[in-house]
């Protein structure tokens, strides 16, 4: 699978590896939406998780997508800027992404372009700041 994806997205996949039933990919933001559409068409239909990690050095958004037919995961790691970072929304691909992306926006401040309703989900609407960022 990694071979096919590297062919389709020659500049988009920065790193890749296989681990048990997981295919791990580090992905350029520019190809994210297309890659997600391809994955969904290839049977990765279940958005198990969509979250972000600030490891002190940088911020990345992590997508964990499961294929219910093949029982395997595609795990995408997408680097994004800490301040003013934005990514295309994948809520048009998986409906579960809508709330997951709202939470990442709420707690990490990442903007998801094309999201139908990007607003805070856990914190009050007038809260200032994004608490899970490591300042």
């Amino acid at each position, binding site marked *: 699978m990694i071979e096919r994806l590297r062919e389709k997205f020659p500049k988009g996949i920065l790193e890749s590896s296989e681990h048990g*039933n997981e295919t791990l990919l580090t992905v350029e933001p520019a190809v994210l939406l297309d890659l997600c559409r391809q994955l969904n068409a290839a049977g990765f*239909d*279940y*958005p*198990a*998780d969509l*979250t972000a*990690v*600030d*490891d*002190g050095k940088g911020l990345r958004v*992590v997508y*964990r997508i499961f294929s*219910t037919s093949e*029982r395997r995961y595609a795990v995408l790691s997408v680097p994004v800027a800490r301040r003013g970072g934005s990514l295309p929304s994948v809520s048009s691909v*998986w*409906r*579960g992404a*809508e*709330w*997951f992306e709202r939470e990442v926006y709420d*707690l990490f401040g990442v903007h998801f372009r094309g999201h139908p309703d990007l607003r*805070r*989900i*856990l*914190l*009050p609407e007038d809260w200032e700041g994004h*608490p*899970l960022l490591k300042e």
Partner: protein
Amino acid sequence: MSAARTEITRTETKILSMGPQHPSMHGVLRLELTLDGEVIAKVRPDIGFLHRGLEKMGENRTYAQFVPYPDRLDYVASFSNNLAYCEAVEKLAGIEVPRRAKWLRVLFLELQRIASHLVWLGTFALDLGAWTVFLYCFREREIILDLFEMATGARLTYSWNRIGGLAKDLPEGFARACQEFLELMPARIQEYDGLFSGNRILRARLEGVGLLPPEVGISYGASGPTLRGSGVDYDVRRVEPFEAYSEIDFNVATSPLCDCYGRYLVRIEEMRQSLRIIRQVLEGLPEGEVMAKVPRTLRPPAAEAYAHVESPRGDFGVYLVSDGGDRPLRVRLRAPSFCNLAAIEEMAKGAKVADIVAIVGSIDIVLGEIDR
């Protein structure tokens, strides 16, 4: 009616807040309903009232210090959260849990499943106006809570899983008490099912209500009985067996109905399957230790790990990122009710206000895990 009269007669939609304080909103949930008369045009759940910042707290506690926290997420099924967290740490640090502990974890998780489904069934029936079922369910749940108290000292949030296994082995008399429970329970489940399925009003309120097509459920990331009630046989115990599940026989309960009644049928059957699993554990329980050797201050390698379990509500996952220090860089808690509740947008299409109570009830949410 004359032309002049019909001109001034029109309908408007109205926005109504259901919750956060409401007798049948399970926990602090606010549903913003856009009503066209009695029919719901749109439902927007408003969550976050119970947000306590648990993921952030995880970054400021050592791995061992954080152990009691996940219990407080889905507090109706606390054993499952606690288990997923410990599994994630064990995966991250490469700790092998002794066989006896794996079997006991299955035992407690299944007891927890029944106890949680009893809370669900009782409150679900209560929401729909059936009092008797509620009292009967809680009567049996007391027996399970007594078992937990005998083994762990607690009734609700046990923190019994520790990194490497369980805090202690079973006490004297536990197996016998558990066996007695296994003997009386099947007849009780029959009783609940009779009261429920045999009630024409309940059936009318649930059949055809809250439809969730399977592809839509999958696209939402829904899981547990909410998804299995739409015929999708996704159960973490079967798909990615954890602890001792690969050595135990059980059926995954599904229903093709896609409605509230289908979700009810799945949970009733799951209780029966849980009894079957517990029976096998009591018969086949291996000897040995219940706790591995774990360093006092755990410093896992700089790596990531994801572990998930089948909680009574669905796919509960914990994602840990470590930088080699004594506390995690990131603790991500993936709660099944989060995605399950999002799917209400689909399930509430064309519903009436009274149906919303049945639909929310049929999803079986716990705000503690949604809001974290």
